[in-house]
């Protein structure tokens, strides 16, 4: 199989990369009708598979689960999840031939084998859905020409997809139709109906393409979302230990700080996050983040280039073939870092203290969000797509760090994201060595404002505010956040 993106002429590459249209709610007026009475079979009953299925059934659709024979015979968790909730469960042979829509919600790594098993069993003219386009775009999987191929990708963990649905809302979702596989022209209608069935239409839907979703998703997760949060957390913790800050305090500040700080990002964007700081602290954080952007820009660009050229997926698939040797080695190394091994201390840290004592993370987040966004947009990805894959997802990932540190983050994200995260982390740490030498506890570990005059230069502050508020990620963010009026705090502290 050849990388699909690389087979396209440049004009078509740019064309598909540039699909991003925020859909008006009137486009979903037909509800779930396009799938009503059709047989939906979901492959995989993990967090996404089970929760999407529960929502689709609660929306009046006919849902059952196809699992591998071994999963059924051994009564694995996926089998229990589906049967405990009174779903029909069967083998591929039993259920796939009856399906009008097959939804593949297995991990990336299994896609090739799952599709190879499922495709010959699918009936003529049926539809196949993905929630991530890696298999189609990077692995170049060719789907039978009579089959329609769509994507519905909720931009939240499966448990949130369910929780928000039951609250009467939904989570932001990307939908797409693969241009090579829409023989009957029914792809969009079915993708929209599926999206309504999960509640996504209530929280903002972005019309995307397989190519745009993959190239932006990979970029976001490798850089700002996972890579930089990991690097920033480890460097911050090590710096505090080096400077004699109590280890328990340092561990707690880093573990929960990233969540508290990015909660402000979620509601008010980058400028909202910096507005939580005093004026002198804001200026300091701004200056640090400007410096970070200069240092890290070439690394962000390298990641985007490797993603576009297929170099990234090629090396990762080599590691798959090699029994995940690198992935497992890097995972073990992460588990051995001092931050990971030091439990959070039993100290109370007030919400505001997380900002005042952890300016450095505010600077990391601003630099990472803006760099990822800028790099994606320069590469031909539309600002709306770039927003979802950078700023929007950062608080969700930060929440996983707050739960159980980097281990939890790397467990929850896909293996693909985890692999990219380690790649970034290893290149980024040495890059920041000189920068970190200058860092002291005033920006990580202690209150920056303590003992300082709180006055600032008017003109300087106005300029900084203007730069922050007029960044394109803020402009597009304001528009998209408006569609998500019911954003809830996901809080562990």
């Amino acid at each position, binding site marked *: 199989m050849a990388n699909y993106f690389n087979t396209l002429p440049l004009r078509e590459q740019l064309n598909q990369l540039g699909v991003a249209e925020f859909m008006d709610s009137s486009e979903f007026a037909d509800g*779930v009708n396009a799938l*009503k*009475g059709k047989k939906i079979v979901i492959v995989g009953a993990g967090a996404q598979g*089970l929760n999407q299925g*529960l929502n689709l*059934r*609660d*929306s*009046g659709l*006919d849902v059952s689960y196809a699992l591998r024979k071994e999963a059924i015979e051994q009564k694995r968790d996926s089998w*229990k*999840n589906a049967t*405990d*909730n*009174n*779903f029909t469960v069967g083998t591929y042979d039993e259920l796939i031939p009856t399906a009008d829509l097959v939804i593949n919600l297995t991990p990336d790594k299994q896609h090739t084998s799952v599709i190879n098993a499922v495709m010959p069993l699918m009936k003529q003219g049926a539809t196949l859905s993905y929630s991530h386009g890696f298999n189609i775009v990077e692995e170049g999987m060719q789907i039978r020409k009579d089959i329609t191929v769509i994507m519905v990708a909720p931009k939240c963990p499966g*448990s949130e997809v*369910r*929780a928000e649905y*039951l*609250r*009467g*809302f939904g989570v932001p979702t990307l939908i797409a139709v693969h241009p090579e596989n829409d023989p009957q022209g029914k792809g969009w209608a079915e993708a929209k109906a599926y999206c309504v069935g999960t509640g996504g239409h*209530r929280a903002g839907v972005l019309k995307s393409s397989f190519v745009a979703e993959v190239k932006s998703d990979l970029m976001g997760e490798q850089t700002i979302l996972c890579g930089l949060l990991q690097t920033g957390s480890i460097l911050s913790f090590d710096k505090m230990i080096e400077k004699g800050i109590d280890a328990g305090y340092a561990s707690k500040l880093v573990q929960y700080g990233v969540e508290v700080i990015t909660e402000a990002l979620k509601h008010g964007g980058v400028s909202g996050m910096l507005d939580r700081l005093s004026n002198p602290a804001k200026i300091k954080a701004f200056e640090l983040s400007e410096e970070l952007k200069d240092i890290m820009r070439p690394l962000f660009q390298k990641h985007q280039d490797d993603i576009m050229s297929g170099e990234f997926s090629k090396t990762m698939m080599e590691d798959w073939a090699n029994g995940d040797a690198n992935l497992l080695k890097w995972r073990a190394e992460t588990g051995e870092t001092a931050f990971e091994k030091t439990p959070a201390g039993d100290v109370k840290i007030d919400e505001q203290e997380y900002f005042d004592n952890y300016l450095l993370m505010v600077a990391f987040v601003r630099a990472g969000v803006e760099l990822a966004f800028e790099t994606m947009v320069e590469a031909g990805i539309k600002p709306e797509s770039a927003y979802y894959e950078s700023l929007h997802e950062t608080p969700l990932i930060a929440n996983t760090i*707050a*739960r*159980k540190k980097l281990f*939890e983050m790397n467990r929850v994200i896909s293996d693909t994201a985890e692999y990219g995260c380690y790649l970034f982390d290893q290149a980024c740490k040495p890059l920041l060595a000189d920068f970190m030498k200058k860092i002291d506890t005033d920006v990580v570990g202690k209150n920056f404002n303590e003992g300082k005059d709180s006055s600032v230069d008017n003109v300087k502050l106005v300029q900084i505010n203007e730069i922050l508020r007029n960044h394109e990620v803020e402009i597009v963010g304001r528009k998209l956040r408006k569609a998500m*009026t*019911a954003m*809830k*705090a*996901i*809080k*562990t*502290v």
Partner: protein
Amino acid sequence: MIPRQVRKDKENKMTEPVAHIDNLTIQYPNNVVLNSLSWPIQKGKNYVIGGTSGSGKTTLAKAIAGLIPSNNAVQLNFDNNLPLPAKVVYISNWYQFTNLEGDRNFYYQQRYNHHQGHDTLTVKAELEHYAQKEKLDFSAIEERIAAFGFEDVQSSQLIELSSGEHKKLQLIRGLWAKPQLLIIDEPYTGLDKNSRIVLNKWLDDLVAEGVQLILITNDNHLPHSINSFAHIVNGKLEKVTSQSEFARDEKRQRKELPAFLREFPQTQYDTIAEMNNIHIRYGKKVVLKDVSWKVNVGEKWLLQGPNGSGKSTLLSLINGDHPQAYGHDLSLFGNKRGSGESIWDIKQKIGIISPEMHWYFDQNATVWHTIASGFYDSIGWFIDVKFHEKKQIEELLEFFDLTDVKHQNLNTLPLGKQRLAMLARTIIKNPPLLVLDEPCQGLDNDQAKYFNDVVDELAEYGKTLIYVGHYESQIPSCLEHRIVLEKGEVKAIENILDTVS
């Protein structure tokens, strides 16, 4: 419930008050709650504290327990000679637990989404964890757990507990610790009749061992050891001789029901719900066993049963909240469940209120948003409300005297008003079916009477009603039929007029 360790005073004299509160003032941004309140709590005085909604009872309790700063206005003097821990334990009116990952982002239907149940500790693990931390011995409470009917619950996850079971867990933890000073905020909320007797006996036994009690309640089935009464008026504590002297909220003036609620619902079906031989289980735990029940249009039902008998689960089948409802012999509003209807189609015909829905409701919702969300059966409010809907909201705000607090966050109001706002949410779309699951939990008798009078009046206009309540004194008079559950089985289906006079 956070125990507070306090220094043991070497020169502690027997005559010294157990707690001495001197000039305690506590204010929130917009109002002074406690205003130079003074209260010496003498040894052997076991109090019930009363007062109107929002008079500062909970604030005072938390200040004594050290949960909110009191600027040294609270002095605690413990008795060295007692074998009991020298501390205060405060049992709040709701136990806010977290899942194993520290998250509190729950939704009320989560109890029924079993696959996610592994997120929280089991009751047993929670109790073991607590015992270890407080150095307590399990044998000390085995009998109490049995008396509460709580043995079977121990393998359940915290998120699976009903509201009554939650209360029991809270009480077991607090009473087990046997602190020298025990403060319980609304001890009886959600408890069934038998559990209330068990609790009072347990409290009396603790007093005999030297525990001093402060209860905050308007309930009048109290432990024998209660011998003192006080209420809070204008931020100050006043002692009274009995509960009958407690300051009460002003009796609500009945107003005319808004016209839109006097319209009979249009129904194209004769039965609201019909179920035959329903079994619901979580793994090995059977929650409903062989349940059959039919509710016809216009009927008024009372649903009863001890805590944990399956009442809320039964209701969840009717209001579309239970994933296991599919694949059963269950029809709702004339349609077989799972025949293409969505849960939103079902919910659109039902107005529901329950303790869980209230506890897990959106913390940031204002009163107005809370009521508006009833149009869409959502938690919180997401969609533009239409003009005629806004008019209906205004009418209901007026009807329940909530107009002046409509922009306040729901959770800043006294409980009684919160319940009225939730009731308003329940009826805003004038649904054919009202499901009221313990709507009077935590309300005093006057408040409950007012609430139930409104329910009676609503019932006159053709609505079907399913009502859950433990106490005959706190139910509406329109109820005609009764179904009683015990351990997940139907114990009785009867005509209520034959049994209650």
